[in-house]
């Protein structure tokens, strides 16, 4: 081996720097003790508002404790305060009218406006999580949750096993979940497709009720609560393709069994000639729903920013098919700040039994619902998140503002009379503002 010129004797500085480092490292306790465990605290607050409809305030708190053996425990609390009006399912008509919701509340509406009924609710949800790595390549995740609101309670959990393969270039996740929900509507469980008569009572905090409203509970056949069971399964594969690009494919299946009807939603009874509403009946949905989706996800790092794109295809045995495209681009700015614009496009077909109303005199279908969320719905979301950090204060802050526009095909071919002149699914404008704070210590 040809000996090249003897390398320059390492300058004295190299030895001094090493020795100085040793001196400062060995005597400073902080530098030596590696952080044994870290705790991450997350808090966020959501303000959600629909134009003259529901308003939601949702604070969330979450604490995650990561131990040095890779195990982590997390606890999260979500609180929702919901007020405002929700569409009852009744159809707009040419003239001012009053509608009575299934919970017996009567409200007046201007002509052509979607009838809604006022409601308010308070929901709390607690979630506990546990992540346990088993050896180098396998990890398990267990999550249990309990949530409660005035007329709904849910308890459930999910378990997932993830496996890292090929030097962690590929990972496979298999998981399952089960929820057991109780529904106890304010005036009892209404009998499906049964006429709703103006009621006198109505739940105490249901907002102002007009005179002469008859409680709808009389038509409920006396059952006060119903059960809903939801087993679910998910399988996913994620793959690192290049230094900048990773992709994943997830498939999930959720089977809902039990009382799936919305207790407060009604279906209008339409006069066959004039098309005006002459009454309303409670809605009725099937007792099972087999829901599946396929989600393809891609994350690509451009060096100055990261591009997130995902496509979800959803289908279920109620006839709803939907496409969802979600695009985000996180642009890293100066020191630890970023801006992330967001676009989401959504389109779904209506459920087979969705209808804008039932024509008086015709035989009632077995299932019927006018809940626009089961209708031919389109929606576009435009928004952006700004992430930053307040100097001298630990932790990162994110502020997100988004606008969601929902609309639908409100001109069905079988519309009758005046309905032909109305848009039965007028656009809905939603604005959300969210503030997030994350701190690890």
């Amino acid at each position, binding site marked *: 081996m040809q000996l090249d010129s003897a*390398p320059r004797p390492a300058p004295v500085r190299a030895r001094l720097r090493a020795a100085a*480092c*040793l001196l400062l*490292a060995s005597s400073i306790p902080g*530098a030596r003790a590696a952080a044994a465990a870290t705790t991450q605290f997350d808090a966020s607050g959501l303000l959600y508002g629909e134009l003259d409809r529901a308003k939601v305030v949702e604070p969330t708190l979450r604490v995650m404790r990561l131990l040095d053996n890779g195990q982590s425990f997390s606890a999260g609390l979500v609180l929702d305060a919901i007020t405002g009006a929700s569409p009852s399912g009744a159809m707009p008509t040419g003239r001012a009218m009053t509608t009575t919701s299934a919970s017996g509340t009567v409200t007046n509406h201007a002509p052509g406006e979607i009838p809604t009924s006022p409601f308010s609710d308070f929901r709390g949800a607690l979630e506990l999580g546990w992540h346990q790595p088993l050896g180098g390549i396998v990890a398990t995740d267990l999550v249990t949750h309990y949530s409660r609101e005035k007329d709904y309670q849910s308890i459930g959990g999910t378990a997932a096993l993830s496996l890292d*393969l090929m030097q962690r270039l*590929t990972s*496979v996740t298999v998981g399952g979940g089960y929820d057991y929900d109780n529904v106890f509507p304010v005036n009892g469980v209404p009998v499906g497709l049964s006429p709703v008569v103006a009621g006198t009572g109505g739940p105490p905090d249901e907002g102002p009720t007009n005179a002469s409203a008859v409680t709808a509970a009389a038509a409920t056949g006396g059952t006060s609560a119903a059960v809903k069971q939801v087993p679910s*399964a998910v*399988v996913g594969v994620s793959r690192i393709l290049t230094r900048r690009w990773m992709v994943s494919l997830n498939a999930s299946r959720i089977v809902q069994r039990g009382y799936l009807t919305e207790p407060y939603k009604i279906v209008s009874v339409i006069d066959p000639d004039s098309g005006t509403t002459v009454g309303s009946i409670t809605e009725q949905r099937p007792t099972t729903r087999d829901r599946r989706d396929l989600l393809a996800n891609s994350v690509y790092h451009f060096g100055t920013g990261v591009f997130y794109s995902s496509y979800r295809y959803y289908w279920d045995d109620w006839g709803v098919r939907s496409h969802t495209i979600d695009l985000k681009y996180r642009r890293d700015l100066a020191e630890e700040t970023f801006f992330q614009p967001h676009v989401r496009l959504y389109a779904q077909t209506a459920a087979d039994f969705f209808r804008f109303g039932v024509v008086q005199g015709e035989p009632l279908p077995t299932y019927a619902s006018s809940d626009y969320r089961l209708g031919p719905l389109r929606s576009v979301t435009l928004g952006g998140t700004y992430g930053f950090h307040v100097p001298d204060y630990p932790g990162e802050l994110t502020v997100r503002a988004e606008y969601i526009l929902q609309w639908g095909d409100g001109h069905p071919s079988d519309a009758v009379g005046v309905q032909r002149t109305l848009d039965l699914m007028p656009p809905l404008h939603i604005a959300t503002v969210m503030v997030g704070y994350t701190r690890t210590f």
Partner: protein
Amino acid sequence: MRFRFAIPLLSMLAVVVLPFALPATAATSTQAPAFRLPDRDGGTVALDSLAAKVVLIDFWASWCEPCRKSFPWLSSLYQRYGSKGLVIVAINLDKSREPAESFLSKYPAPFRVAFDPAGKTAEQFHVRAMPTSFVLDDHRTILLTHPGFDPKKTDAIETLVREACEK
């Protein structure tokens, strides 16, 4: 309702898992490949010009989380055996010098540091995880390979280094 859904799922899983589930074969004891890399002061570090009874090579990078835990341990190991024949060379695999220097200002490195941005040496050493350290005897044969940083394995490495130093 049977889960007809499950059958295709399991077959998909099989496609993914089977061919890759075989563990990589353990490397037989081989001679460590020679290298000559730039150090922090404009000089170079060459494996064959290290006068040492035992050499510990540690491949690290500033973005690698376990490396933050391994550096304090490497410092204390060097403090105890540096004067008894142990030389530690921490080979940095960052793509550029700046992140490595800012890491070193937070996690002091009293031992030698070398830079291999292209990862050529890591390739020759068949590095499979970040970090990975190799303990070499005075003939530069690899006595032990330690992928990742597992605090439970540090005692085994320390005894190996102590025995090599006392030889």
